[in-house]
């Protein structure tokens, strides 16, 4: 197998981090988190491919995705509450706690 997906994984992960660092909207933050998640899922599956145990890793990946869904659910609930308090989704409004 001549393809190596790992560089792609790292690029995806880096993009996710970049997104988290620069985008100032809570929704885009979610997208950044999802990018990180997808990068790792991909890495897991790729590891299975490399090791010749795709079934194991794919089942792990499925579990990870469902966990991610849980996290996203909680995240969205919090974002919803945040929006109710602030009428905005801007992280600049999320600076009450500091110092």
């Amino acid at each position, binding site marked *: 197998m001549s393809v190596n997906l790992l560089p792609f994984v790292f690029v995806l992960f880096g993009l996710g*981090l970049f997104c988290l*660092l*620069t985008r100032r909207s809570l929704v885009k*933050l979610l997208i950044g988190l999802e990018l990180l998640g997808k990068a790792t899922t991909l890495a897991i599956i790729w590891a299975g491919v490399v090791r010749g145990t795709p079934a194991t890793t794919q089942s792990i990946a499925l579990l990870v995705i469902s966990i991610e869904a849980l996290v996203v659910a909680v995240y969205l609930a919090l974002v919803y509450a945040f929006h109710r308090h602030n009428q905005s989704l801007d*992280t600049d409004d*999320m*600076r009450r706690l*500091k110092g």
Partner: protein
Amino acid sequence: MTAQLAGLLLFLIPFAGALLVPLVNFFAPRVVPWLAVLFGLASSLIAFFLLGGTPAGAPITLDILPGFFRSGLLLDPLSLLPALIATWIGFLVLIYSLGYMKGEENLARYYALVLLFIGGMVGMALADNFLALFFFWEVMGVCSYQLIAFFYKDPKAAAAGAKAFLTTKIGDIGLLAAIIILAVNSGSFSFSVNFGAAAGLALPVLGLVAFGFILGAVGKSAQFPLHVWLPDAMEAPTTISALIHAATMVNAGVYLLARVSPVLALVPWSLTLVQWIGAITALLGALLAAFSNDLKRILAYSTVSQLGYMVLAVGVGAAFASQFHLFSHAIFKGLLFLCAGAVIHAIGTRDIRQMGGLYKHMPAVAITFLIGAMALLGLPFLNGFFSKDFILEEVILGGAWGPLALALIAAALTAFYALRTTFVVFWGKPKPAFYQDTLPRAIKLPQAFSLPQATHPHKTPANMVVPLLALALACFLSWLLVGPLSEAWIASGLPAPALSALELIRETFSSLAFIFSLTAIAVGLFLFLQRARLARYFHEQEPGWIRAASRGLGFDDLYTWLADRIRDFGDWVLMVWEERVMEGINRFAAWASLGLSRLSCLLQTGDVHWNLLYVTLTLIVVLGVVLW
């Protein structure tokens, strides 16, 4: 009962009592005095039987605190004698306190402290190592402070307590320094190890050690020049004075010197120093006693003087003689103090110029006081006679002629003030004493000096009389114990002459010292008989030194001046240190830490993107470090 168990009990009972008394006070305050007496009785009985039953041979040690440092009980005659004195005099003082302290406030505190004081002395005497000795030494220091200032509402009492504490502290520093040097040298606190190892020290260091021990003893035993606290300690209840003078505190210094005499013997000049300190103190104390008009102060100076004799004895290498005198002194001085207490209790003043003719009112007290005074001046066949002559004899044998001369003058003065005090107080006319006018004119008598006479003196309660009679009897008999004492002493390997009571009599009457001391008594008697002429002389000439003597020879003034200077200097140093140095450091530390704190809190931007930036940067750094 084995000796170990008895020793342990002797050591623990006073402390147990001191602990129990405050507890019992919660629900049964009336029982407290009797409880204290009971504890005193228990420990004194044990001490008595322990002294008789000490097995011959090596001192007994046993582990009290295994692990941290090895501490034990040292049961030899040298250590048991002070313990015996402390417990017995303490017991008598406790009985006496039943009457004397009746109706005072804070009785639980009083009895607890008295028991603790006795316990401290016993613990100090029985300690087999320097650390424990120092600990109990300090226990006594604290107790003396508390008890001297027992009537703390009286500013004079509070000041006297503080003075005693601070003055003895000077000595304590010396003692601690000596102990530390020895412990660093040998790596142990034990007496036996250190006495062995001390010989290996260089002479200057050893001199320092000896000086430290002497300083400690000088402070605790109120020796010249640190004797100033003892007269002031008269502000204490009289029972406490008796305890301090006869049983606990001041004996500690003499005991210490006797105990460390192997170390002192290694330093040539130290014994000479001790001799001279002792002799000067003996003379000084007698002189000051002769010119005091305060009954308790006379007795206090007398204690200073007698302790001088004991120190002198240690200085000529006669530890046994010093302990023998300690024993006698404890008895007659305890007696004198308790009598004085009865007198003061009865007429409510301490000024002997306002006393006189008290024999009619309190014959028992008068007779016993006379016996005590005779023992003090060394009348033959009383215990003070034998022990003082013993000391003088040893001084003659030691060839210390200078100190001997001082000691003999002191003996003459002792005879003088003992006679004078007794006769003025009990047999004199009930009017101002003869040399009232010799006093500095600045000191005025109260106009109503006859007032105490007008009111009827209180009757002396029986529980105050019983200890007096017991002690008076002991004045006649205690010297008979010289035989068993010296036997036990020799049996445990301490240097002592082998003496029985009979031999003591023979030795004493055939010695040069006997003649000397009889002469001294005669001179004293002569002075006493000529007191009217003396008084006129002093009245007319009023030499400067007499004025000084009635003010304690100016030691207090000198020390006050010194203390003021030291305090001024200390204030200045403190000011510089506090205001400039410490304040600077404090300000800087506060400024720096607050500043750093504010700076680091800036890191907590509250912005989620910054948080994630830290994460990313950390990841990069960690990866870099791990790779590298």
